[in-house]
């Protein structure tokens, strides 16, 4: 089932605009991630799709049907919540068939579907327990099972993994993604976590203060961010954004380093360099003192003072025998540079010219 959002606008009573002209199309069977900082409007979009809140303008279509003014129950969708929303007085089974009971589905059908989803989420042996006796991961599985049992083809998920610890989160990420692909579900997934957005989504919408910053496949957002906000949002450690000046065929970085660089633009620019888009070399054009070093085992994160606004973040895949205060030199890999104009919009990518000092 596809979902179309056309010119969605939402303004609170106090005049605060929470959604400013949201347009997108979610295809059938797609894992669609809404990501953004808190207050960006991602949950508002989800609530609008579910029908919990009225919108001020625009239309919402589910499967070609205009549902803008329909109540939630007529939109044929299911939802998974951050805090699970389980009834503490009901057993796992009773919680799962809660909706079926309310809709007076035939008892035998209820049992049949219940057993099916219990197996899908591996909870068969817990079916008679109460939620309070389950771990966080198990509770979220119950919540997932309740969404699956309804037979809804669209499942909305509102930060379902935020209450779980890191290890469980990684496990559930895989599980939810596998389940979605196996069952061909259309999932709209809200998260503030860039890792979840990158690893789970077919399509990702990054929101900022009620506006869409960019929509695209995860790697497109990473490799070709539409602006510095998108560039900064994805990636850990965050991208380095260096101020620079374009003059003819020269690009001068804020710290004085100059390279040959051909671009029709002239004047102030910002250059985006991912922490991993560097090569350590003693002859490197960039050099400075290490202000912070994090050995990760499978690699090392380093911050280097290079005379720019903030230390330059490096990420290398080696274990290094270095410590804070040591001198280090590196080059930026020219074909992975991103060029942003004075308005922070992406204007150039990759090998614009050979990097030469």
């Amino acid at each position: 089932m596809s979902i179309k959002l056309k010119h969605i606008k939402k303004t609170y009573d106090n005049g605060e605009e929470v959604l400013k002209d949201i347009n997108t199309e979610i295809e059938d069977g797609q894992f669609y991630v809404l990501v953004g900082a808190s207050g960006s409007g991602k949950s508002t979009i989800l609530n609008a799709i579910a029908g919990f809140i009225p919108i001020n303008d625009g239309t919402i279509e589910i499967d070609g049907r205009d549902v803008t003014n329909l109540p939630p129950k007529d939109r044929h969708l299911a939802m998974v919540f951050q805090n699970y929303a389980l009834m503490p007085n009901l057993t796992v089974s009773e919680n799962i068939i809660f909706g079926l009971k309310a809709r007076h589905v035939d008892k035998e059908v209820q049992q049949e579907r219940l057993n099916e989803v219990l197996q899908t989420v591996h909870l068969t042996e817990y079916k008679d327990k109460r939620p309070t006796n389950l771990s966080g991961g198990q509770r979220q599985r119950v919540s997932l099972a309740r969404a699956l049992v309804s037979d809804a083809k669209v499942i909305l998920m509102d930060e379902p993994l935020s209450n779980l610890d890191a290890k469980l989160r990684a496990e559930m990420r895989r599980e939810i993604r596998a389940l979605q692909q196996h069952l061909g579900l259309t999932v709209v997934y809200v998260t503030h976590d860039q890792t979840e957005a990158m690893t789970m989504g077919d399509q990702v919408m990054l929101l900022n203060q009620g506006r869409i910053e960019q929509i695209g496949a995860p790697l497109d957002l990473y490799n070709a961010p539409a602006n510095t906000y998108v560039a900064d949002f994805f990636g850990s450690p965050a991208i380095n954004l260096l101020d620079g000046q374009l003059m003819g065929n020269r690009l001068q970085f804020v710290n004085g380093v100059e390279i040959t660089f051909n671009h029709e633009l002239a004047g102030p620019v910002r250059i985006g360099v991912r922490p991993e888009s560097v090569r350590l070399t003693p002859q490197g054009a960039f050099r400075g003192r290490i202000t912070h070093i994090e050995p990760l085992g499978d690699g090392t994160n380093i911050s280097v003072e290079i005379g720019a606004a903030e230390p330059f973040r490096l990420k290398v895949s080696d274990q290094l025998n270095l410590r804070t205060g040591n001198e280090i030199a590196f080059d930026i890999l020219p074909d992975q540079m991103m060029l942003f104009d004075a308005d922070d919009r992406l204007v150039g990518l990759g090998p614009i010219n050979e990097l030469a000092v």
Partner: protein
Amino acid sequence: MQVNRTKQIGNYLLLSVIAIILMVPLLLGISLSLSSSSSISQGNLFPQKLVFSNYVRVFTDTHMAQFLLHSLIVSGVVMIGQLVLSILAAYAFVFLDFKFKKTAFVIFLSTMMLPFESQIIPNFNLMRDLNLLNTYSAMALPFLASAFGTFMIKTSFEQLPPELKQLSQIEGLSHFQFITKVVMPYCKISLITFALYSFLTNWNMYLWPLISTDNDKVRTAQIGLRQMRAQDTASNWGLIMAATIIVVIPTMLIIFFGQKYFKNGLTSGVIK
């Protein structure tokens, strides 16, 4: 450590003194109810010999059994009425949207500031005009709407995670299904607490049942106790004490078994 210890001893000492002051009348009552009248008239505070005849005579020689039944009916009706009406009112204040909701609630709450004594005369006039004096209705009607109950239950409804409301919307639950299947089970403890509180308050009510009745047809146990002293049994302290103990028993039971509910229910709105 030493200071804590002294403080603790002080606390326990204070609590013990208060407990003794509170317990003495009760224990004295129990002691007298088990004494024969001759023993009491000799000035003995403790029974020479345990007698249970006072308890038997409460039911054979007085109308106490009837009074207790009346009390049970009135308190039961008021408890159920208050519970149902408070749940519905609280539901409207928490889950429904309507104009002037906050103002309406403030006005609603402000009725708590009017002491019942000040409402006695209008209430009496109303009941008289409706020809309801000397009926259960007269005793129950003025108490069916409870601002305190609505307030307490509203506070507990507000603790319901909004996701459960959203889930119910998706599943298409009606208001009634949402109340009975989601809200009430979730707020069970507060509801039980309020029900017990409501029952006790009415069980122990004296003034209104006395005013709204002028014969024994529907009078309650509290008035029955008072009457025993006014009538020829006045000097029979053993009998009066036995009747008193019987009337106090429901209170004791509810407080004893309901303590955990009171503790959780009355404070649940405060924590968090």
